[in-house]
Protein backbone atom coordinates (compact mmCIF):
# COMPACT_ATOMS: atom_id res chain seq x y z
CA UNK A 1 0.00 0.00 0.00
CA UNK A 2 1.32 3.39 -0.93
CA UNK A 3 1.35 6.22 1.57
CA UNK A 4 -0.79 8.41 -0.65
CA UNK A 5 -3.03 7.09 -3.40
CA UNK A 6 -4.89 9.37 -5.72
CA UNK A 7 -7.45 7.94 -8.10
CA UNK A 8 -9.39 9.79 -10.78
CA UNK A 9 -9.10 13.06 -8.92
CA UNK A 10 -11.27 15.75 -10.45
CA UNK A 11 -11.58 19.36 -9.46
CA UNK A 12 -14.02 21.47 -11.41
CA UNK A 13 -14.72 25.09 -10.61
CA UNK A 14 -18.14 26.42 -11.60
CA UNK A 15 -17.72 29.57 -13.65
CA UNK A 16 -20.62 31.28 -11.96
CA UNK A 17 -22.09 34.47 -13.32
CA UNK A 18 -25.11 34.76 -15.56
CA UNK A 19 -23.88 32.01 -17.92
CA UNK A 20 -24.13 29.35 -15.21
CA UNK A 21 -27.60 30.45 -14.17
CA UNK A 22 -28.83 30.46 -17.76
CA UNK A 23 -27.42 27.00 -18.38
CA UNK A 24 -29.13 25.69 -15.26
CA UNK A 25 -32.42 27.22 -16.33
CA UNK A 26 -32.11 25.52 -19.69
CA UNK A 27 -31.45 22.27 -17.91
CA UNK A 28 -27.91 22.05 -19.27
CA UNK A 29 -24.78 21.29 -17.35
CA UNK A 30 -23.29 24.39 -15.80
CA UNK A 31 -20.07 25.44 -17.56
CA UNK A 32 -17.07 24.58 -15.43
CA UNK A 33 -13.36 25.09 -15.46
CA UNK A 34 -11.77 21.66 -15.41
CA UNK A 35 -8.68 22.45 -13.41
CA UNK A 36 -7.95 18.81 -12.65
CA UNK A 37 -9.45 16.07 -14.74
CA UNK A 38 -8.93 12.48 -13.80
CA UNK A 39 -5.54 12.48 -12.16
CA UNK A 40 -4.18 9.31 -10.56
CA UNK A 41 -0.85 8.64 -8.93
CA UNK A 42 0.73 7.15 -5.83
CA UNK A 43 3.36 8.51 -3.50
CA UNK A 44 5.36 5.81 -1.76
CA UNK A 45 6.65 6.26 1.78
CA UNK A 46 10.00 8.01 1.77
CA UNK A 47 9.99 8.98 -1.88
CA UNK A 48 9.84 12.32 -3.64
CA UNK A 49 7.40 12.47 -6.49
CA UNK A 50 7.95 15.43 -8.79
CA UNK A 51 4.92 17.04 -10.41
CA UNK A 52 5.81 19.26 -13.33
CA UNK A 53 3.91 21.22 -15.93
CA UNK A 54 3.49 24.76 -17.10
CA UNK A 55 1.65 27.44 -15.15
CA UNK A 56 -2.09 26.85 -15.03
CA UNK A 57 -1.98 23.13 -15.75
CA UNK A 58 -3.52 22.27 -12.38
CA UNK A 59 -0.45 21.33 -10.33
CA UNK A 60 -1.33 23.54 -7.42
CA UNK A 61 -4.96 22.49 -7.55
CA UNK A 62 -3.88 18.87 -7.15
CA UNK A 63 -1.82 19.96 -4.14
CA UNK A 64 -4.73 21.83 -2.63
CA UNK A 65 -6.99 18.82 -3.03
CA UNK A 66 -4.36 16.64 -1.37
CA UNK A 67 -4.09 18.78 1.75
CA UNK A 68 -7.83 19.35 1.56
CA UNK A 69 -7.82 23.08 1.17
CA UNK A 70 -10.21 22.17 -1.61
CA UNK A 71 -12.85 19.49 -1.67
CA UNK A 72 -12.38 17.49 -4.86
CA UNK A 73 -15.35 17.31 -7.21
CA UNK A 74 -14.82 13.59 -7.63
CA UNK A 75 -12.23 10.90 -7.18
CA UNK A 76 -10.44 9.56 -4.17
CA UNK A 77 -7.48 10.63 -2.09
CA UNK A 78 -6.28 7.94 0.27
CA UNK A 79 -3.76 8.59 2.97
CA UNK A 80 -2.38 5.42 4.57
CA UNK A 81 -5.39 3.63 3.18
CA UNK A 82 -7.95 6.07 4.57
CA UNK A 83 -10.20 8.08 2.33
CA UNK A 84 -9.72 11.78 3.01
CA UNK A 85 -11.25 13.32 -0.11
CA UNK A 86 -14.71 13.50 1.40
CA UNK A 87 -13.95 14.36 5.02
CA UNK A 88 -15.28 17.59 6.49
CA UNK A 89 -12.99 20.06 8.26
CA UNK A 90 -13.60 18.48 11.64
CA UNK A 91 -12.88 14.93 10.54
CA UNK A 92 -9.86 16.07 8.57
CA UNK A 93 -8.18 17.62 11.60
CA UNK A 94 -6.38 14.50 12.89
CA UNK A 95 -4.81 14.04 9.45
CA UNK A 96 -3.41 17.56 9.46
CA UNK A 97 -0.67 16.41 11.74
CA UNK A 98 0.60 13.96 9.13
CA UNK A 99 -0.04 15.91 5.94
CA UNK A 100 1.58 19.29 5.63
CA UNK A 101 2.33 21.78 2.92
CA UNK A 102 4.99 24.36 2.13
CA UNK A 103 3.56 27.15 0.07
CA UNK A 104 4.94 28.85 -2.97
CA UNK A 105 5.28 32.39 -1.68
CA UNK A 106 7.30 32.41 1.54
CA UNK A 107 6.20 35.96 2.31
CA UNK A 108 2.48 35.62 1.69
CA UNK A 109 2.28 32.36 3.59
CA UNK A 110 3.52 33.88 6.84
CA UNK A 111 1.12 35.94 8.90
CA UNK A 112 2.62 39.45 9.13
CA UNK A 113 1.29 39.90 12.66
CA UNK A 114 2.59 36.71 14.22
CA UNK A 115 6.11 36.10 15.40
CA UNK A 116 8.19 33.23 14.12
CA UNK A 117 7.85 31.51 17.46
CA UNK A 118 4.07 31.66 17.56
CA UNK A 119 3.78 30.39 14.00
CA UNK A 120 6.06 27.41 14.50
CA UNK A 121 4.62 26.68 17.93
CA UNK A 122 1.04 26.75 16.75
CA UNK A 123 1.21 23.36 15.07
CA UNK A 124 2.42 21.89 18.37
CA UNK A 125 -0.33 23.59 20.35
CA UNK A 126 -2.94 22.23 17.97
CA UNK A 127 -1.72 18.68 17.60
CA UNK A 128 0.36 17.69 20.61
CA UNK A 129 -0.12 17.55 24.36
CA UNK A 130 3.25 19.24 24.93
CA UNK A 131 3.35 21.74 27.77
CA UNK A 132 4.83 25.19 27.25
CA UNK A 133 8.34 24.09 28.13
CA UNK A 134 8.30 21.09 25.80
CA UNK A 135 6.92 23.21 23.01
CA UNK A 136 9.63 25.78 23.51
CA UNK A 137 12.30 23.09 23.36
CA UNK A 138 10.79 21.58 20.24
CA UNK A 139 10.55 24.97 18.51
CA UNK A 140 14.23 25.58 19.19
CA UNK A 141 15.06 22.13 17.90
CA UNK A 142 13.08 22.86 14.74
CA UNK A 143 14.87 26.17 14.19
CA UNK A 144 18.14 24.33 14.45
CA UNK A 145 16.87 21.68 12.07
CA UNK A 146 16.12 24.22 9.34
CA UNK A 147 19.28 26.19 10.00
CA UNK A 148 17.84 29.30 11.65
CA UNK A 149 19.26 30.98 14.72
CA UNK A 150 17.30 30.92 17.95
CA UNK A 151 17.55 34.71 18.03
CA UNK A 152 15.08 34.93 15.14
CA UNK A 153 12.27 33.34 17.16
CA UNK A 154 10.86 36.65 18.28
CA UNK A 155 11.12 38.32 14.90
CA UNK A 156 8.25 39.06 12.60
CA UNK A 157 8.18 37.99 8.95
CA UNK A 158 8.98 41.45 7.58
CA UNK A 159 12.29 41.36 9.43
CA UNK A 160 13.43 38.17 7.72
CA UNK A 161 15.00 37.61 4.34
CA UNK A 162 13.28 35.53 1.68
CA UNK A 163 15.40 32.49 2.42
CA UNK A 164 14.80 32.77 6.15
CA UNK A 165 11.05 33.09 5.55
CA UNK A 166 10.99 29.90 3.54
CA UNK A 167 12.90 28.14 6.30
CA UNK A 168 10.28 29.28 8.79
CA UNK A 169 7.63 27.85 6.47
CA UNK A 170 9.49 24.58 6.36
CA UNK A 171 9.96 24.52 10.14
CA UNK A 172 6.24 25.10 10.58
CA UNK A 173 5.38 22.32 8.15
CA UNK A 174 7.62 19.71 9.81
CA UNK A 175 6.82 20.74 13.40
CA UNK A 176 4.44 17.87 14.07
CA UNK A 177 6.65 15.25 12.39
CA UNK A 178 4.38 14.80 9.39
CA UNK A 179 4.88 11.85 7.05
CA UNK A 180 3.84 13.54 3.85
CA UNK A 181 4.68 17.09 2.82
CA UNK A 182 3.42 18.81 -0.29
CA UNK A 183 5.97 21.29 -1.58
CA UNK A 184 4.22 23.72 -3.89
CA UNK A 185 7.04 25.36 -5.83
CA UNK A 186 8.96 26.02 -2.62
CA UNK A 187 11.93 27.48 -4.43
CA UNK A 188 10.36 29.50 -7.22
CA UNK A 189 10.18 32.71 -5.19
CA UNK A 190 13.78 32.43 -4.03
CA UNK A 191 16.96 33.81 -5.52
CA UNK A 192 18.97 31.36 -7.57
CA UNK A 193 21.69 31.49 -4.92
CA UNK A 194 19.23 30.51 -2.19
CA UNK A 195 17.47 27.91 -4.25
CA UNK A 196 20.19 25.29 -4.07
CA UNK A 197 20.47 25.72 -0.30
CA UNK A 198 16.73 25.32 0.16
CA UNK A 199 16.81 22.19 -1.98
CA UNK A 200 19.68 20.71 -0.02
CA UNK A 201 17.80 21.45 3.19
CA UNK A 202 14.66 19.74 1.92
CA UNK A 203 16.65 16.70 0.84
CA UNK A 204 18.43 16.55 4.19
CA UNK A 205 15.12 16.73 6.06
CA UNK A 206 13.61 13.98 3.93
CA UNK A 207 16.47 11.67 4.79
CA UNK A 208 16.54 12.64 8.48
CA UNK A 209 12.85 12.52 9.15
CA UNK A 210 11.77 9.92 6.62
CA UNK A 211 9.40 12.30 4.87
CA UNK A 212 7.60 11.74 1.61
CA UNK A 213 7.33 14.69 -0.70
CA UNK A 214 5.10 15.71 -3.51
CA UNK A 215 7.39 18.23 -5.11
CA UNK A 216 5.60 20.60 -7.45
CA UNK A 217 7.71 22.70 -9.73
CA UNK A 218 8.18 24.00 -13.18
CA UNK A 219 11.91 24.06 -12.65
CA UNK A 220 12.99 20.86 -14.31
CA UNK A 221 16.56 20.95 -13.04
CA UNK A 222 15.35 20.96 -9.43
CA UNK A 223 12.93 18.14 -10.09
CA UNK A 224 15.67 16.11 -11.74
CA UNK A 225 17.77 16.47 -8.63
CA UNK A 226 15.12 15.91 -5.95
CA UNK A 227 12.53 13.56 -7.35
CA UNK A 228 12.83 9.83 -7.77
CA UNK A 229 9.78 9.75 -10.00
CA UNK A 230 8.17 12.49 -12.04
CA UNK A 231 4.62 13.07 -13.18
CA UNK A 232 4.09 15.47 -16.06
CA UNK A 233 0.81 17.34 -16.14
CA UNK A 234 -0.80 19.04 -19.07
CA UNK A 235 -4.12 20.86 -18.90
CA UNK A 236 -5.41 19.05 -15.86
CA UNK A 237 -4.25 15.54 -16.74
CA UNK A 238 -1.14 13.51 -16.23
CA UNK A 239 0.43 12.72 -19.57
CA UNK A 240 3.51 10.85 -18.41
CA UNK A 241 4.65 9.30 -15.16
CA UNK A 242 8.02 7.70 -14.91
CA UNK A 243 11.29 7.19 -13.16
CA UNK A 244 13.17 10.48 -13.16
CA UNK A 245 16.21 9.11 -14.95
CA UNK A 246 14.21 7.42 -17.69
CA UNK A 247 12.03 10.44 -18.20
CA UNK A 248 14.89 12.84 -18.65
CA UNK A 249 16.86 10.37 -20.75
CA UNK A 250 14.06 9.53 -23.10
CA UNK A 251 10.81 11.46 -22.80
CA UNK A 252 8.03 9.59 -24.55
CA UNK A 253 4.95 11.76 -24.53
CA UNK A 254 5.08 14.55 -27.14
CA UNK A 255 4.34 17.10 -24.44
CA UNK A 256 7.19 15.88 -22.25
CA UNK A 257 9.48 15.98 -25.26
CA UNK A 258 8.52 19.54 -25.97
CA UNK A 259 8.88 20.49 -22.31
CA UNK A 260 12.38 19.05 -22.04
CA UNK A 261 13.37 20.45 -25.43
CA UNK A 262 12.48 23.89 -24.15
CA UNK A 263 15.06 23.72 -21.36
CA UNK A 264 18.09 25.73 -22.40
CA UNK A 265 21.35 23.80 -22.45
CA UNK A 266 24.49 25.79 -21.63
CA UNK A 267 26.46 24.28 -24.50
CA UNK A 268 26.23 25.81 -27.99
CA UNK A 269 27.31 22.58 -29.67
CA UNK A 270 24.93 20.30 -27.83
CA UNK A 271 22.56 18.33 -30.00
CA UNK A 272 19.05 19.20 -29.11
CA UNK A 273 15.67 17.81 -29.72
CA UNK A 274 13.95 20.40 -31.89
CA UNK A 275 10.55 19.25 -30.86
CA UNK A 276 8.11 22.15 -30.44
CA UNK A 277 4.36 22.41 -30.07
CA UNK A 278 2.16 24.70 -32.10
CA UNK A 279 0.17 27.52 -30.53
CA UNK A 280 -0.70 28.23 -26.94
CA UNK A 281 -2.09 26.19 -24.08
CA UNK A 282 -5.86 26.12 -24.67
CA UNK A 283 -8.50 27.23 -22.18
CA UNK A 284 -9.43 24.60 -19.58
CA UNK A 285 -13.08 25.62 -19.97
CA UNK A 286 -13.87 24.20 -23.41
CA UNK A 287 -11.57 21.25 -23.43
CA UNK A 288 -11.53 19.28 -26.65
CA UNK A 289 -12.46 15.65 -26.45
CA UNK A 290 -9.80 13.07 -27.03
CA UNK A 291 -6.16 13.85 -26.42
CA UNK A 292 -5.87 17.31 -24.94
CA UNK A 293 -2.67 18.00 -26.79
CA UNK A 294 -4.22 17.12 -30.12
CA UNK A 295 -4.56 20.67 -31.40
CA UNK A 296 -0.93 21.49 -30.74
CA UNK A 297 0.81 18.21 -31.36
CA UNK A 298 2.81 17.94 -34.60
CA UNK A 299 2.35 14.17 -34.55
CA UNK A 300 -1.43 14.16 -34.12
CA UNK A 301 -3.29 11.40 -35.97
CA UNK A 302 -7.04 10.74 -36.34
CA UNK A 303 -6.92 8.27 -33.46
CA UNK A 304 -6.05 11.15 -31.12
CA UNK A 305 -9.71 12.15 -31.20
CA UNK A 306 -10.19 9.38 -28.66
CA UNK A 307 -9.05 9.99 -25.14
CA UNK A 308 -5.77 8.16 -24.56
CA UNK A 309 -5.60 6.24 -21.29
CA UNK A 310 -2.56 6.49 -19.04
CA UNK A 311 -1.12 3.07 -19.74
CA UNK A 312 1.93 1.30 -18.49
CA UNK A 313 4.22 0.74 -21.46
CA UNK A 314 7.20 -0.43 -19.45
CA UNK A 315 7.46 -1.32 -15.75
CA UNK A 316 6.77 1.87 -13.80
CA UNK A 317 6.46 3.91 -16.96
CA UNK A 318 3.05 5.36 -17.76
CA UNK A 319 2.24 7.40 -20.85
CA UNK A 320 -1.07 8.76 -22.06
CA UNK A 321 -0.58 8.79 -25.82
CA UNK A 322 -1.91 6.56 -28.58
CA UNK A 323 1.25 7.00 -30.56
CA UNK A 324 3.74 6.02 -27.90
CA UNK A 325 4.43 2.59 -29.25
CA UNK A 326 5.35 4.24 -32.52
CA UNK A 327 7.32 6.98 -30.82
CA UNK A 328 9.39 4.67 -28.72
CA UNK A 329 10.27 2.38 -31.54
Amino acid at each position, binding site marked *: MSLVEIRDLQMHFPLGGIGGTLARLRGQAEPVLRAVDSVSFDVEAGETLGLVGESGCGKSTVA*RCLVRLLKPTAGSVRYAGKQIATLDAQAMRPFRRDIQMVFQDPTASLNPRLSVRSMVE*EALTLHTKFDAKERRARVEELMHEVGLGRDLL*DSYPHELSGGQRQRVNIARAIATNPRFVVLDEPTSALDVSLRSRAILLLEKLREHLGLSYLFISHDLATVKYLASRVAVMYLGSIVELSDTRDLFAKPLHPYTRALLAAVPVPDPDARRDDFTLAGEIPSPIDVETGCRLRGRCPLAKPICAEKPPLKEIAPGRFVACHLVAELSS
Partner: protein
Amino acid sequence: MSSSLSVSSSTSKPVASSLVWQRLQRNPVSFAALCVIVLIAAAAILAPIVAPYAPDATDPAASLQPPSWQHPLGTDEFGRDQLSRIIFAARVDLLVAFAATLIAVTIGGLLGAVVGYSRGWADTLAMRVVDALMAFPAFVLAMGITAGLGNSITNVAIAISITQIPAYLRLTRGEMLRLREMEYADAARTLGNPTWRIVLIHLLPNCLPPLIVQATLSTGFALLTMASLSFIGLGIQPPQSEWGVMTAEGASQIVTGEWWLFVFPGLAIMVSVLAFNLIGDGLRDLLDPRMRGLR
Protein backbone atom coordinates in the same frame (compact mmCIF):
# COMPACT_ATOMS: atom_id res chain seq x y z
CA MET B 1 12.54 48.66 3.18
CA SER B 2 15.82 50.16 4.22
CA SER B 3 14.42 51.35 7.52
CA SER B 4 13.18 47.88 8.44
CA LEU B 5 16.56 46.39 7.59
CA SER B 6 18.19 48.48 10.25
CA VAL B 7 15.73 47.22 12.83
CA SER B 8 17.35 44.70 15.10
CA SER B 9 15.83 41.28 14.96
CA SER B 10 14.83 40.77 18.54
CA THR B 11 12.61 43.75 19.30
CA SER B 12 9.88 44.05 16.76
CA LYS B 13 6.61 45.11 18.35
CA PRO B 14 8.03 47.94 20.45
CA VAL B 15 10.03 49.17 17.47
CA ALA B 16 6.99 49.09 15.22
CA SER B 17 4.90 51.08 17.66
CA SER B 18 7.67 53.57 18.34
CA LEU B 19 7.98 54.02 14.58
CA VAL B 20 4.29 54.91 14.49
CA TRP B 21 4.95 57.31 17.31
CA GLN B 22 7.89 58.91 15.48
CA ARG B 23 5.87 59.35 12.32
CA LEU B 24 2.96 60.83 14.23
CA GLN B 25 5.38 63.40 15.57
CA ARG B 26 6.51 64.14 12.04
CA ASN B 27 2.92 64.95 11.11
CA PRO B 28 2.57 68.14 13.20
CA VAL B 29 -1.14 68.72 12.52
CA SER B 30 -2.20 65.29 13.70
CA PHE B 31 0.21 65.49 16.56
CA ALA B 32 -1.29 68.82 17.67
CA ALA B 33 -4.77 67.29 17.33
CA LEU B 34 -3.69 64.39 19.51
CA CYS B 35 -2.39 66.85 22.10
CA VAL B 36 -5.72 68.68 22.08
CA ILE B 37 -7.65 65.46 22.72
CA VAL B 38 -5.23 64.42 25.45
CA LEU B 39 -5.61 67.85 27.02
CA ILE B 40 -9.42 67.72 26.90
CA ALA B 41 -9.44 64.18 28.25
CA ALA B 42 -7.07 65.13 31.07
CA ALA B 43 -9.23 68.14 31.96
CA ALA B 44 -12.31 65.91 31.95
CA ILE B 45 -10.72 63.31 34.21
CA LEU B 46 -9.35 65.95 36.57
CA ALA B 47 -12.48 68.09 36.33
CA PRO B 48 -13.05 68.50 40.09
CA ILE B 49 -9.47 69.75 40.43
CA VAL B 50 -9.08 71.97 37.35
CA ALA B 51 -12.57 73.46 37.21
CA PRO B 52 -12.66 76.74 39.14
CA TYR B 53 -16.29 76.25 40.29
CA ALA B 54 -18.72 73.41 40.79
CA PRO B 55 -20.61 72.91 37.50
CA ASP B 56 -24.04 73.45 38.97
CA ALA B 57 -23.22 76.01 41.64
CA THR B 58 -25.61 78.86 41.00
CA ASP B 59 -24.87 82.45 41.91
CA PRO B 60 -27.84 84.78 41.34
CA ALA B 61 -25.54 87.75 41.90
CA ALA B 62 -23.37 86.79 38.94
CA SER B 63 -25.91 85.79 36.29
CA LEU B 64 -25.29 86.39 32.60
CA GLN B 65 -21.86 87.88 33.05
CA PRO B 66 -19.63 88.24 29.99
CA PRO B 67 -16.17 86.67 30.13
CA SER B 68 -14.07 88.21 32.88
CA TRP B 69 -11.12 87.21 35.08
CA GLN B 70 -13.53 85.73 37.60
CA HIS B 71 -15.45 83.79 34.98
CA PRO B 72 -13.15 83.38 31.93
CA LEU B 73 -15.97 82.12 29.73
CA GLY B 74 -18.77 84.05 31.40
CA THR B 75 -21.81 82.78 33.31
CA ASP B 76 -25.31 81.70 32.36
CA GLU B 77 -28.62 83.06 33.60
CA PHE B 78 -28.33 81.12 36.88
CA GLY B 79 -24.80 82.42 37.43
CA ARG B 80 -23.17 79.05 36.72
CA ASP B 81 -19.57 79.27 35.55
CA GLN B 82 -19.36 78.38 31.85
CA LEU B 83 -15.74 77.18 31.96
CA SER B 84 -16.46 74.73 34.79
CA ARG B 85 -19.56 73.49 33.03
CA ILE B 86 -17.67 72.95 29.77
CA ILE B 87 -14.93 71.03 31.59
CA PHE B 88 -17.42 68.81 33.39
CA ALA B 89 -19.41 68.37 30.18
CA ALA B 90 -16.28 66.96 28.52
CA ARG B 91 -16.66 63.94 30.81
CA VAL B 92 -20.04 63.03 29.40
CA ASP B 93 -19.18 63.96 25.84
CA LEU B 94 -15.92 62.01 25.64
CA LEU B 95 -17.26 59.07 27.61
CA VAL B 96 -20.27 58.63 25.36
CA ALA B 97 -18.20 59.16 22.20
CA PHE B 98 -15.61 56.61 23.25
CA ALA B 99 -18.15 54.12 24.61
CA ALA B 100 -20.31 54.30 21.48
CA THR B 101 -17.26 53.81 19.28
CA LEU B 102 -15.99 50.92 21.36
CA ILE B 103 -19.36 49.14 21.27
CA ALA B 104 -19.67 49.73 17.53
CA VAL B 105 -16.11 48.57 16.73
CA THR B 106 -16.48 45.45 18.82
CA ILE B 107 -19.85 44.37 17.50
CA GLY B 108 -19.33 45.57 13.93
CA GLY B 109 -15.80 44.18 13.76
CA LEU B 110 -16.68 40.73 15.11
CA LEU B 111 -19.87 40.39 13.07
CA GLY B 112 -18.12 41.63 9.95
CA ALA B 113 -15.26 39.20 10.47
CA VAL B 114 -17.61 36.27 10.92
CA VAL B 115 -19.88 36.99 7.96
CA GLY B 116 -16.97 37.96 5.74
CA TYR B 117 -15.18 34.75 6.52
CA SER B 118 -18.18 32.46 6.25
CA ARG B 119 -19.86 34.23 3.31
CA GLY B 120 -23.05 32.41 2.34
CA TRP B 121 -26.51 33.35 3.56
CA ALA B 122 -25.36 35.00 6.81
CA ASP B 123 -23.25 37.38 4.77
CA THR B 124 -26.08 38.18 2.39
CA LEU B 125 -28.47 38.78 5.27
CA ALA B 126 -26.01 40.97 7.18
CA MET B 127 -25.24 43.05 4.12
CA ARG B 128 -28.92 43.67 3.38
CA VAL B 129 -29.52 44.75 6.98
CA VAL B 130 -26.50 47.03 6.71
CA ASP B 131 -27.85 48.47 3.48
CA ALA B 132 -31.17 49.13 5.18
CA LEU B 133 -29.51 50.80 8.18
CA MET B 134 -27.30 52.89 5.95
CA ALA B 135 -30.28 54.04 3.92
CA PHE B 136 -31.39 56.01 6.99
CA PRO B 137 -29.48 59.18 7.62
CA ALA B 138 -27.43 58.30 10.72
CA PHE B 139 -28.83 61.21 12.68
CA VAL B 140 -32.46 60.37 11.97
CA LEU B 141 -31.75 56.79 13.00
CA ALA B 142 -30.14 57.92 16.25
CA MET B 143 -33.11 60.21 16.89
CA GLY B 144 -35.50 57.34 16.38
CA ILE B 145 -33.58 55.02 18.66
CA THR B 146 -33.20 57.50 21.53
CA ALA B 147 -36.84 58.46 21.17
CA GLY B 148 -37.69 54.76 21.44
CA LEU B 149 -35.28 53.79 24.22
CA GLY B 150 -35.55 56.93 26.30
CA ASN B 151 -32.67 59.31 26.76
CA SER B 152 -30.27 58.15 29.44
CA ILE B 153 -26.53 58.39 28.86
CA THR B 154 -26.38 54.63 28.23
CA ASN B 155 -29.20 54.74 25.72
CA VAL B 156 -27.61 57.63 23.85
CA ALA B 157 -24.37 55.65 23.63
CA ILE B 158 -26.27 52.58 22.40
CA ALA B 159 -28.21 54.61 19.84
CA ILE B 160 -25.05 56.17 18.46
CA SER B 161 -23.24 52.86 18.34
CA ILE B 162 -26.09 51.29 16.39
CA THR B 163 -25.79 53.99 13.75
CA GLN B 164 -22.08 53.22 13.47
CA ILE B 165 -22.08 49.43 13.48
CA PRO B 166 -22.84 49.16 9.74
CA ALA B 167 -19.69 51.05 8.77
CA TYR B 168 -17.45 48.73 10.80
CA LEU B 169 -19.31 45.64 9.72
CA ARG B 170 -18.90 46.49 6.09
CA LEU B 171 -15.27 47.48 6.47
CA THR B 172 -14.26 44.33 8.34
CA ARG B 173 -16.24 42.12 6.02
CA GLY B 174 -14.49 43.59 3.01
CA GLU B 175 -11.07 43.11 4.58
CA MET B 176 -12.03 39.58 5.58
CA LEU B 177 -13.07 38.68 2.04
CA ARG B 178 -9.59 39.67 0.93
CA LEU B 179 -7.69 38.11 3.84
CA ARG B 180 -9.45 34.75 3.78
CA GLU B 181 -7.90 34.13 0.37
CA MET B 182 -4.39 34.98 1.52
CA GLU B 183 -1.82 32.24 1.48
CA TYR B 184 -1.28 32.53 5.22
CA ALA B 185 -4.95 31.79 5.76
CA ASP B 186 -4.44 28.63 3.70
CA ALA B 187 -1.37 27.85 5.76
CA ALA B 188 -3.42 28.22 8.95
CA ARG B 189 -6.06 25.87 7.55
CA THR B 190 -3.47 23.32 6.47
CA LEU B 191 -2.08 23.40 9.98
CA GLY B 192 -5.48 22.32 11.27
CA ASN B 193 -6.66 25.53 12.92
CA PRO B 194 -10.34 25.51 13.79
CA THR B 195 -12.32 28.24 12.08
CA TRP B 196 -12.61 30.46 15.16
CA ARG B 197 -8.82 30.53 15.51
CA ILE B 198 -8.34 31.41 11.85
CA VAL B 199 -10.80 34.29 12.17
CA LEU B 200 -9.78 35.64 15.58
CA ILE B 201 -6.07 34.95 15.74
CA HIS B 202 -4.91 34.88 12.14
CA LEU B 203 -7.14 37.22 10.19
CA LEU B 204 -8.86 39.73 12.48
CA PRO B 205 -5.60 41.33 13.71
CA ASN B 206 -4.76 42.02 10.07
CA CYS B 207 -8.04 43.94 9.69
CA LEU B 208 -7.12 46.31 12.51
CA PRO B 209 -5.35 49.19 10.73
CA PRO B 210 -8.37 50.33 8.69
CA LEU B 211 -10.61 49.70 11.72
CA ILE B 212 -8.47 51.97 13.88
CA VAL B 213 -8.64 54.75 11.31
CA GLN B 214 -12.39 54.37 10.99
CA ALA B 215 -12.80 54.33 14.76
CA THR B 216 -10.86 57.54 15.23
CA LEU B 217 -12.76 59.35 12.51
CA SER B 218 -16.11 58.20 13.81
CA THR B 219 -15.37 59.04 17.44
CA GLY B 220 -15.58 62.65 16.29
CA PHE B 221 -18.77 61.87 14.47
CA ALA B 222 -20.21 60.13 17.53
CA LEU B 223 -19.49 63.21 19.60
CA LEU B 224 -21.16 65.41 17.03
CA THR B 225 -24.20 63.13 16.85
CA MET B 226 -24.58 63.17 20.59
CA ALA B 227 -24.23 66.94 20.82
CA SER B 228 -26.81 67.29 18.05
CA LEU B 229 -29.21 64.90 19.78
CA SER B 230 -28.85 66.87 23.00
CA PHE B 231 -29.23 70.13 21.12
CA ILE B 232 -32.67 69.14 19.91
CA GLY B 233 -33.51 67.75 23.32
CA LEU B 234 -33.34 64.02 22.59
CA GLY B 235 -29.96 63.33 24.13
CA ILE B 236 -28.54 64.27 27.47
CA GLN B 237 -31.02 66.20 29.59
CA PRO B 238 -30.35 69.38 31.51
CA PRO B 239 -29.26 70.14 34.19
CA GLN B 240 -26.50 67.66 33.30
CA SER B 241 -23.91 69.80 31.59
CA GLU B 242 -23.21 68.63 28.07
CA TRP B 243 -21.88 70.65 25.15
CA GLY B 244 -24.94 70.14 22.95
CA VAL B 245 -27.31 71.00 25.80
CA MET B 246 -25.27 74.09 26.64
CA THR B 247 -25.22 75.21 23.01
CA ALA B 248 -29.01 74.80 22.89
CA GLU B 249 -29.46 76.80 26.08
CA GLY B 250 -27.13 79.47 24.76
CA ALA B 251 -28.86 79.59 21.41
CA SER B 252 -31.97 81.03 23.03
CA GLN B 253 -29.85 83.94 24.19
CA ILE B 254 -28.56 84.90 20.75
CA VAL B 255 -31.09 87.67 20.30
CA THR B 256 -30.30 89.20 23.65
CA GLY B 257 -26.60 89.32 22.87
CA GLU B 258 -25.12 86.83 25.40
CA TRP B 259 -22.84 85.37 22.72
CA TRP B 260 -20.51 83.54 25.14
CA LEU B 261 -23.27 81.13 26.09
CA PHE B 262 -23.39 79.35 22.74
CA VAL B 263 -20.02 80.24 21.22
CA PHE B 264 -17.86 78.47 23.83
CA PRO B 265 -19.71 75.14 24.05
CA GLY B 266 -19.99 75.19 20.25
CA LEU B 267 -16.26 75.79 20.01
CA ALA B 268 -15.61 72.88 22.36
CA ILE B 269 -17.63 70.61 20.07
CA MET B 270 -15.94 71.92 16.96
CA VAL B 271 -12.40 71.67 18.31
CA SER B 272 -12.80 68.12 19.58
CA VAL B 273 -14.53 66.82 16.45
CA LEU B 274 -11.90 68.48 14.29
CA ALA B 275 -9.16 67.00 16.44
CA PHE B 276 -10.57 63.47 16.11
CA ASN B 277 -10.84 63.90 12.36
CA LEU B 278 -7.28 65.17 12.06
CA ILE B 279 -5.95 62.28 14.12
CA GLY B 280 -7.93 59.91 11.92
CA ASP B 281 -6.49 61.45 8.77
CA GLY B 282 -3.00 61.22 10.20
CA LEU B 283 -3.49 57.58 11.17
CA ARG B 284 -4.86 56.81 7.73
CA ASP B 285 -1.69 58.15 6.13
CA LEU B 286 0.34 56.28 8.69
CA LEU B 287 -1.33 52.92 8.27
CA ASP B 288 -1.77 53.18 4.52
CA PRO B 289 -1.00 49.81 2.96
CA ARG B 290 1.25 51.48 0.43
CA MET B 291 3.45 52.63 3.28
CA ARG B 292 3.56 49.20 4.84
CA GLY B 293 7.01 48.59 3.48
CA LEU B 294 8.27 51.55 5.46
CA ARG B 295 6.83 50.41 8.73
